[in-house]
């Protein structure tokens, strides 16, 4: 690493801050005059020349007072960020193309409010937050997503021009946060249910299945389907799984191999994601088969998320 890069890293926080709460100290806060501040400075210089030229005693006083106000404004702008406590939070997975929201909690331990804090992860999309005295605010930083996989929160610029707008103070935050981005689902008709081709319509209204007895639990079975009551009758025996007539007909195998191999990988993953969503929407029992990965058939929210996660992180 060159000296310049080292300097940049030391100055501008390109390295991660980890996941611990982070307190803004004076070494992290930068401050420069804003455009409004430059306008103010130019006005002050012109005013000073006017006051000297016309020998206005109070004109001098006014210019000096405004200069003092500028200095005081600088300190207060700095103060608006100083000693702010930032705690990284969680981030809900989203589908590619959607906007991910990274949750940060800002804590103000000072009695006076901190207003007009701007957090910006992506250029042009700042979020403005205000925190009451002794209060905290939960800020969702939006970040648009393009491709599936883990999305790291880039360096966040936390800035403020409050109270006078004559100076911009900012700090860079790099909390270790990442968001899982699911592949963008592509809607396509579900493949035929397998292994029994004669799949009947599953009502999905619940309580309509024909009970067909028990079988021993396999490790791939979801714990949701364990028949606890029946198993309790045979404490020594294996856990039992309820079997439903026709249940196996609805057991859908969403296989990588079922997608058109002529398509590119991302499209194929997208189709699989679409299938997962469609199957979940239809309240079906489905499993996912990917090269080197197999998820046993199951249903429900968590199973769906697991499938989507597998797809998001799948490396063909």
């Amino acid at each position, binding site marked *: 690493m060159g000296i310049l890069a080292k300097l940049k890293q030391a100055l501008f926080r390109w390295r991660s801050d980890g996941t611990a709460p982070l307190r803004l100290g004076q070494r992290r806060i930068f401050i420069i005059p804003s455009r409004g501040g430059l306008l*103010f400075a130019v006005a002050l210089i012109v005013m000073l020349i006017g006051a*000297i030229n*016309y020998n206005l005693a109070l004109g001098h006083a006014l210019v000096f007072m405004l200069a003092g106000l500028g200095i*005081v404004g600088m*300190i207060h702008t700095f103060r608006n960020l100083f000693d702010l406590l930032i705690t990284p939070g969680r981030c809900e997975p989203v589908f590619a193309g959607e906007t991910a929201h990274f949750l940060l909690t800002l804590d103000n331990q000072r009695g006076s*409010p901190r207003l007009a804090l701007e957090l910006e992860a992506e250029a042009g999309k700042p979020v403005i937050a205000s925190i009451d005295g002794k209060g905290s*605010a939960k800020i969702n930083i939006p970040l648009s997503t393009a491709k599936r996989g883990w999305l790291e929160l880039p360096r966040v610029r936390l800035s403020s021009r409050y109270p006078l707008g004559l100076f911009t103070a900012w700090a860079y935050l790099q909390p270790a946060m990442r968001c899982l981005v699911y592949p963008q689902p592509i809607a396509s008709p579900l493949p035929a249910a397998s292994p029994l081709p004669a799949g009947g319509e599953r009502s999905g209204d619940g309580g309509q299945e024909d009970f067909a007895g028990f079988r021993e639990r396999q490790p791939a079975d979801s714990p949701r389907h364990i028949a606890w009551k029946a198993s309790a009758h045979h404490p020594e025996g294996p856990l039992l799984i309820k079997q439903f007539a026709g249940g196996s007909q609805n057991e859908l195998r969403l296989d990588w191999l079922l997608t058109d191999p002529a398509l590119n990988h991302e499209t194929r993953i997208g189709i699989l994601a679409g299938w997962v969503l469609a199957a979940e929407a239809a309240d079906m029992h489905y499993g996912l088969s990917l090269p080197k990965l197999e998820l046993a058939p199951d249903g429900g929210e968590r199973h769906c998320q697991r499938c989507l996660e597998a797809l998001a992180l799948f490396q063909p």
Partner: protein
Amino acid sequence: MSTPASEALDRQATPWLFATALATTAPHVLHQPPWLSALAGLLLFWATWLWWRDQRLPGRWILLPLVGAGCAGILIEFHTLFGRDAGVAMLVVFMAMKLLELKSRRDAMVVVTLGYFLLLTHYFYSQSIPTGLWLLASMCLVTGTLIRLHGGPASTPRHSLRYATLLCLQAVPFMLVLYLLFPRISGPLWGLPSDAHAGMTGLSDTMSPGSISNLAQSADIAFRVRFDGAIPPKQKLYWRGPVMETFDGTTWRRHEGRLPAERVENLSPPISYETTLEAHNQHWLLALEAPNALPPETSLNGTLTAASRRAITERQRFRLSATLDYRFNTSEDPLTLRRNLALPTELNPKTRSLGSQWQASGMAPKAMIDKALGMFASDFTYTLRPPLLGRNGIDEFLFQSRRGFCEHYAAAFVVLMRAAGIPARVVGGYQGGEHNPLDGYLVVRQSDAHAWAEVWLNGQGWVRIDPTAAVSPSRIETGIADALPFGEPLPALVQWRADWVRTLRYRWEAINNSWNQQVLGYDMQRQRELLSRLGLPDADWRNLASLLGIFCSLLVAALTAWTLYQRPKRDPARQLWQKALRHLARRQVDCAPWETPLALAQRVQERHPELADAFQRLADAYLQARYGRSDNNLKALREAVAQLR
């Protein structure tokens, strides 16, 4: 709590900008042409109306012609777009126009900056205490606007104003340091526009009937004097201005040519004093007769008038000294004497024939003077409202109306003397003054403006004769308000003579005077004095800059420490608990961060049974104080901590 960012101006911020525009331009109504104030008011009203009805702001095609019309109006009114008055007028118009263009925060910043700038322009017209206070309040308002703009809707009006006041207060120390130490530059940096010193009142260098009586109706202060010793008696206080030697029948004028040098014999020890002249845009100093020892850049001319090389365009202090008994030009240049005998032929035949009668009768000059003064004393009336006089003004005054003010008496006396062959001339200036017992200053107002006569007598030189004293001795002895009957158009300030009014006025004028002397009069010279008192006798700008740097950094450091490192006040119960923990730590019991008070009490019981009871009570009291329902359990806790020792 989060809203999408935008640079657009939020609707509720706009009234702040209207208030800023109003507060920073309103005082200009006092000295601006009415059409301009009306235009600005109308534009402000329009902008407010559009805001109120939530309507679209006017487009460029309507704003540009308006700007053009405003500029054209200013050009017609002032004949220029630059210079002081026209420049201020332009700023007012720009400010009003900008309100019709408020779209983004950047526009709002322009309004605020313009507002700060406009504050300065008020000082062109007045630097009095009320102006200063008004502008301080306006500054807080403009700063509040700035806070509201950048804080967004989260900052309430109350909060914005309070915060603005706090910031302004914190700026005051910087202002003081800069005011005292910023290197002062005296004099204009370049030529001032011609209207820079417009509108100053004061004695003019010509005298015609009415010119002094108009001045006498103003209560404005002409100058203030502080004597090193006692104040001389009032009838000796003649403040000498221009001496007028040529007369065309109505107007007296100064002689324009070269004057021979003056020769003054002092007959009494000089008295020294300091005078603070208000700006009058003329050269003379209005020194006490007869001036000697003059400050640099000033000189005496042949008529004994002290004058400064530069016109006095701002309040200025001079140290002077004067002799009250003197003899002036006992031998006078014959040309000057001839000039002081000249009268316009054909005018005022009656006066001239009276004069020549006296001369022909062989009266001594002294007798003629006494005769003239006796004439005035018999049946003349001293008034500010004399009848209008025609072509032969002196004749009409002496033989018909017999009502007049000092200028009439001085003029008539001089004409009469010249007709009788005695060289005479008119002297303009001020007479008397009012002693303010609170600060010891003598205040001379425009209403003390006066004119008197001077005759040249062989062997005695020029002798002052005040014909007004013959008509109204009280004018010279006590002042104009006593000399004139009630109901004359004198300013109320001079006329009201109730004791409490007078005391109030003295107080106010003393405050104003010290404001003028200490605050406004702080110039290069005073700065040097201050620095030599600080131990820097000949500081140049480098010393000043480093001093400034040191003081400002100290202030910044102090302010930073104060604003950033204010820790919130800790809970007293917690502090007492910490104290108890320190006691325990001395006995090798450390409280783990996760340990509850009761768990700690348990541990104390195991480690130090002798402390167990006391600590148990302490832990209970602490829990009660921090989490209990009643408000004040600190006493029990304090006692428990005390018992732990």
